[in-house]
């Protein structure tokens, strides 16, 4: 069962934790930052090893499995497959960038970097753990550091935002926990893969009760994604969080919700997803359209980007749910592949946008779009990076966003035609609010106040460059990501 060789996934997961503990012992701010970054980059290097050795056709790879809690039949069970390997990569790439974005931090440096590394362990764990008990530890582990990141380093409304973030996510978790308690009762296992195998034979729970279980698990993940109407924590949390917090929140934490749908909801409740497809599509459509319109109405730069996440995650969910509809196998695989790609792409573009919001906020201490204007003249590099990130988010061909959204809509149009057509309204509004955003920030007359603003520093440019590398790279050659996911995607689609 266990793969020979190094326990890569455990190393990747626990290296940041080890770094966090070392950070606690250090006194100098600079040493703390270097250690934290080194731990995070160490995880990245290991992740690259995993990525290079990963074979899509091999199914679950790098498996580690040891008995853990006999009384509950819980194993320490790790592994990556096509559903998770890209997410591990995304986590490994974004976290060091987020740390780098806070290189100039001078307030409670130790605590900040400690919490951030803890958060990274939680995120890696969510994408690699395959037993609910084990996985849930990481799922909640992400919550506490993020709470404090927002609470300590957030903007004006941080108390309210952090409280709301925590309570919403936890309420969802409780619903999910109850549902898993029942699954355990019915099946005697908490292992995701075993549950999937059992569910493939016959529905795990029968009768009216199954519906409640499904909605319980749904709620836990839907709050995290977030799907309308469970999204209201997100604009507050994103807007108030410090830059790195927003980057990670948008790029990775939201993906934990979507990943949950792929790993848990679809494989374990296929018949329930099929039965409730119209409702699910309706909620998804609402996320897309209302998210887009809400973004359009924002006057706060960061809040706008936050609502754009609701909108973009809606596309991913559209791809996922469309893939469960009746129809051509290739269309369904395309929609789901598109959704997988969209997860990665949104991770890149939202991290870039939140980073750029942070850059300008650091310089101007305002987030109001109306306060900016004409920044292109004094910060041409900034404007260029923002423009590319904006186009990536908008889905311009040649950049990463396009491929994912194209595949989602290609699949969805023939599978759930009405819903897909309606969702195109969202596409138009997405373009509108993004163009509106860049116009307000970069074009028009320059606000005199900002005359002396410096352009991107070398450090900031590095962060931008890494993200742009992915935007262009995936835009031109998305094959590695699609290939990595494709086998797992087809396995999943076959369940429906």
């Amino acid at each position: 069962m266990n793969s020979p060789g190094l326990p890569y996934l455990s190393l990747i997961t626990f290296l940041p934790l080890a770094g966090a503990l070392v950070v606690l012992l250090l006194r100098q701010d600079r040493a703390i930052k270097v250690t934290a970054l080194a731990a995070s980059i160490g995880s990245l290097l290991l992740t690259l090893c995993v990525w290079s050795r990963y074979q899509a056709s091999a199914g679950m790879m790098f498996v580690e499995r040891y008995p853990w809690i006999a009384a509950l039949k819980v194993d320490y069970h790790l592994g990556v497959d096509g559903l998770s390997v890209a997410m591990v990569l995304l986590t490994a790439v974004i976290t060091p960038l987020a740390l780098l974005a806070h290189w100039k931090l001078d307030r409670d440096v130790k605590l900040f970097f400690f919490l951030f590394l803890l958060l990274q362990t939680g995120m890696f764990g969510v994408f690699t753990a395959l037993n609910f008990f084990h996985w849930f530890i990481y799922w909640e582990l992400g919550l506490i550091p993020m709470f404090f990141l927002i609470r300590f380093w957030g903007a004006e409304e941080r108390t309210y935002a952090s409280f709301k973030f925590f309570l919403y996510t936890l309420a969802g978790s409780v619903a999910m926990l109850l549902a898993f308690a029942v699954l355990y009762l019915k099946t005697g296992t908490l292992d995701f893969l075993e549950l999937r195998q059992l569910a493939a034979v016959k529905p795990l729970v029968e009768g009216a009760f199954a519906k409640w279980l499904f909605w319980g698990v749904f709620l836990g993940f839907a709050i995290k994604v977030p799907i309308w109407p469970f999204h209201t924590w997100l604009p507050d949390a994103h807007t108030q969080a410090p830059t790195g917090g927003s980057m990670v929140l948008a790029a990775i934490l939201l993906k934990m919700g979507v990943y949950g749908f792929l790993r848990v909801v679809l494989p374990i409740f296929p018949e329930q997803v099929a039965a409730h497809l119209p409702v699910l599509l309706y909620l998804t459509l609402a996320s897309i359209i209302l998210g887009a319109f809400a973004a359009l109405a924002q006057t706060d730069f960061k809040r706008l980007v936050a609502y754009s996440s609701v909108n973009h995650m809606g596309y991913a969910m559209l791809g996922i749910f469309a893939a469960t509809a009746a129809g051509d196998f290739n269309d369904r695989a395309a929609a789901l592949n598109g959704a997988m790609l969209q997860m990665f792409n949104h991770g890149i573009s939202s991290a870039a946008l939140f980073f750029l919001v942070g850059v300008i906020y650091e310089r101007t201490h305002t987030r109001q779009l109306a306060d900016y204007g004409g920044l292109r003249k004094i910060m041409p590099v900034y404007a260029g990076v923002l423009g590319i990130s904006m186009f990536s988010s908008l889905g311009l061909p040649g950049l990463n966003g396009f491929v994912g959204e194209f595949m989602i809509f290609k699949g969805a149009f023939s599978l759930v035609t009405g819903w897909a057509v309606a969702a195109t309204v969202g596409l138009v509004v997405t373009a509108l609010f993004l163009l509106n955003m860049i116009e307000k920030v970069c074009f028009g007359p320059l606000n005199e106040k900002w005359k002396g603003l410096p352009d991107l520093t070398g450090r900031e440019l590095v962060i931008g460059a890494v993200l742009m590398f992915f935007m262009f790279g995936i835009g031109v050659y998305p094959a590695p990501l699609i290939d990595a996911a494709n086998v797992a995607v087809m396995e999943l689609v076959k369940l429906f």
Partner: protein
Amino acid sequence: MRPDWTIYLTFLGAGLILLLPRDAKNLIRWVALATGLAGLTVGLTGYFHYNDSFRDLIARTGSGFWHVVNVPWIPAIGAHYHLALDGINFPLVILNGFVCVTGILFSWNIETRTKEFFAFFLTLIAGVYGVFMAMDLFLLFVFYELAIIPKYFIIAIWGSTRKEYGAMKLVLYSFVGSALVFIGMLAIFFAAGGHSFDLLELAKTPVGRQVQIWVFPLIFAGFAVLAGMWPFHTWAPTGHVAAPTAASMLLAGVVMKLGSYGCFRAAMLLMPAGLEYWKWTIAVLAVIGIIYGAAVALVQKDFKFIIGYSSVSHMGFVLLGLATLNVTGMSGAVLQMFSHGIVASLLFAVVGRMVYDRTHTRQLDELGGLAKVIPFAAVTFVIAGAASMGMPGFSGFVAEIQVLIGAFQMSPWLAVSAAVGIPVTVAYILNALNKVFLDRDDAGHHGDGQDAHPTLPPISLPEIVAGVVLMALLVIIGLYPSIMLDMIKANVELFLKGLP
């Protein structure tokens, strides 16, 4: 050394302290600590010995009991001096040992009548050890009463807010509880023929069903008073608030467990038919307690009252788990007794010792920004709070998820209603965290936290040691519950097998 030496050593320690001169305060503290450590060591050695052998024991004897000592005591009434351990009371003995040691460390700063304080403290601990180990109803009752008396004095002498009222209320409730237990105990004794008080003997031949249905609520409620079961809980918040830190740690940490343990060992073991008859009532009251305790904690203005009501809420999980009568739920309940013992001790240590002893106020409105001033207290509160809200990775999670699973087996509504308590718990913990440690400070934004409490003494070494020990326990049991759960589960299975 046999585990019953925990009792004798602790009594010896109490006696020794009485012989010491009252001015030798440091000596007294060290003697108390040495006694506590000795008891804990004896307990732990026995624990790991038992942990290695309980499967053999069960396979060989068909019962999981390690009969430590069993000699006739008062032959006229058939009372035996019978102490025995199994997977259910052993974790609680260990809990008592840890709470004793850390309680002494958290009381290191007691200057008024130090000698009497530690003497009472150790007497109470010894009594609790006795209750947990006693396998004879009469003996159990004697130890139980022995634990109540020192409790009164500790609160009445060293307590704070309305201490006489709190102490009196607590003792009255306890006595009413013990009176109920006493009546029930006699009823059982005579109904069973009047030969023996031995719990295992009595359990072998349960009394008639009608008798059980009448007697069960007496004994159960008598102990449930101490467990803080709604609606008999009202002594708990006032008692906790009035008590000095170490005493509230003991009250919430072990005395409430005495109650729930008594419910299990005396009421449930002896009267299976009564249990069957009353289990729904217990479960519903437990769920009410979970939600009520949490909701009331949410609106408290006094930091200690929050923790006091949270204990009521968490003990609800114990009672709910016991009432489920299935392996998962009951194992969860026993683990929750241990887990909540640690969590409550930590929380009361933060409130009473770390915060109140320094600021002399517990009003949420007057506190704030303490995270900057006493960061260790904030960290402790965050970890204990996370464990209290059932965060996975801490012992509370393993316990509560099992109680929920068990409750679900009994009725989905019970589980869903009990789960409602969890978000409310999160809300009151975060509320307290914000008001006490974070607000008015915010990591240096405004900084008036420092101004409000400019010269708080730093957290002392005994506090750090004790805090770290308890936090480590939460994580160890949270990540590796098997060291406790395996034996609990094996013995719960035996108990359930014995039910008709």
